[in-house]
């Protein structure tokens, strides 16, 4: 059971990470910065529980707010650049964040042991969950409550004007502006919101793995973050969840029986999905189930 709980945890924070990228993709921004916000959330909330002994809920919240603050700051220069240039610029941001934590040493003595981030040696023993008697089932439930809340919020977004506006900006910025939409507000809000979600995800990640170091936050993870919504499709929020289950559940854990060939298959399956489902695996708006039974238009 613990194993499945563990996988559910992984799926949980990867879903959050993917959703944070999903929110930005709705506005047409392919952001590789999500892993930077994820790292900020992880380190900030880890520092709060380990060094300051703060309650996990508060620590996650503060970590997410700090991450969203940086996302807000990144939002402004990101306005000026689009498409592939934004990809590169956000890679640069994530790498700068990673290198910052690579250089960050903040050790405090607690109960005779030094705790805290220790540069390349990593940040060990973020053991709030285990140390406070949380059963694996509690941790999983907690993570999934957060995931469901975020899923619900983003699902709700598609039913209110804000969601249509995000998608409108994503489809055609000029037409959106000409319809009276303030691009700056929309894009910076999406970036901030995405940063918040990624920040929570990072906090949950740090606490469930108990250890983070700069190597946890590489371009590879940034790629995963955008891969989920792209593979899943942007039509609705469940595509991302589906893609995370596909990658984390099936490709990484489910294919273990393939042994050495598992990782070869990984790149191959991404290629196949993109060739056969270029708009993502789930390419229907969730509020229109009738489309399920019609032919998919490529």
């Amino acid at each position: 059971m613990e194993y499945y709980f563990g996988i559910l945890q992984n799926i949980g924070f990867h879903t959050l990470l993917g959703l944070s990228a999903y929110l930005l993709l709705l506005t047409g921004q392919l952001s590789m910065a999500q892993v930077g916000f994820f790292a900020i959330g992880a380190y900030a909330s880890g520092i709060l529980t380990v060094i300051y002994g703060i309650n996990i809920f508060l620590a996650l919240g503060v970590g997410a707010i700090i991450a969203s603050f940086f996302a807000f700051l990144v939002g402004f220069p990101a306005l000026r650049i689009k498409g592939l240039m934004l990809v590169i610029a956000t890679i640069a941001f994530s790498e700068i964040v990673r290198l910052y934590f690579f250089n960050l040493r903040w050790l405090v003595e607690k109960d005779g042991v030094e705790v805290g981030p220790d540069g390349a040696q990593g940040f060990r023993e973020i053991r709030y969950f285990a140390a406070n008697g949380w059963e694996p089932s509690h941790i999983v439930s907690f993570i999934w409550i957060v995931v469901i809340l975020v899923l619900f919020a983003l699902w709700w977004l598609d039913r209110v004007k804000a969601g249509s506006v995000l998608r409108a900006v994503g489809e055609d910025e000029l037409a959106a502006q000409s319809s009276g939409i303030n691009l700056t507000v929309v894009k910076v809000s999406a970036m901030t919101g995405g940063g918040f979600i990624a920040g929570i995800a990072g906090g949950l990640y740090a606490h469930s793995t108990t250890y983070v170091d700069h190597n946890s936050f590489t371009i590879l993870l940034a790629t995963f973050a955008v891969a989920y919504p792209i593979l899943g499709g942007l039509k609705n929020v469940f595509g991302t969840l589906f893609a995370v289950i596909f990658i984390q559940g099936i490709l990484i854990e489910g294919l273990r029986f393939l042994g050495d060939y598992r990782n070869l298959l990984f790149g191959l399956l991404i290629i196949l999905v993109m060739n056969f489902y270029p708009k993502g695996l789930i390419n229907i708006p969730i509020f229109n189930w009738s489309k399920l039974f019609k032919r998919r238009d490529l």
Partner: protein
Amino acid sequence: MSFGLIDILQSLIDGILFGSIYALIGLGFTLIFGAMEKLNMAYAASSIGGAYVGLGLATLFSLPLFLVFLIGPIAAGLISILVYLVSFRLIPSTNHLGSLMASIGALFFIDEVIIHETQGSPLTFPELGIFAEAYFMLGDLGFRGDLIFIMIFGLISMGVIIYLLYYTRLGLATRAVSQQNVAARLCGIPIHTINISTFVLAGILGGFAGCMAAASVGVISPLLTIPITIKGLIAAVIGGLGSIRGAIIAGLMIGGVENFFLLVRGVNERDIYVFLLLFVFLVLRPNGLFGNEINRD
């Protein structure tokens, strides 16, 4: 570390020379972008992949080692065709995200195949013969022979590519495809043939770059791929995506900046400055050194 003016000059020289490799990879990114307005993320991986194939075949059939530098680029060209077929050919050309993801998939795949075949352990790579031995001194400043060779090679490639693009029919067609895709198609230009030839050209170039990179270290390892991908991308972007001389100049510049900050700020902070440089460029000069004002959406 204490250092003086000579050290700074020397580090800049070393860095700029080493930057030739970034320049060559950046050139490949830029070529493909110029033709299709798309990024081929698997580009550096196919370059390193080509170098591996060259090394593998040469070892397997006990060929003379210089053939590695011939087989490598050809293999990289072939791998590029494969990447084109699986990541670009069948995915609708308007679907930029699809191609980007598929090429990232190809990057993972190529990397894992290499790792699978070599167990991930570094392999000795033949060095560039007399060039590797050569080490010139100019006063107190030293110059590595093999890196000078790579740099000259890079400049020649730049010249050849500019010639191909601006003085031949193939180049005319390529530019037509990149500027007016639909119109070019209506004029009867075979778009896929043009795209494939761009991929092959870029692939061969990348294969050379991959072999040179491995030869300059003397060792080849799958660890090479990601740093070269990132630095090559940065070179292409700072140079202005689509600009050939831009990629070369930016590649050399990144090499220099990188080594300079390595000297003055140490290795832990080195890359921060390279990324900051990129960030500054993107914000203040989003079209890069020589990019023109086309929509890069």
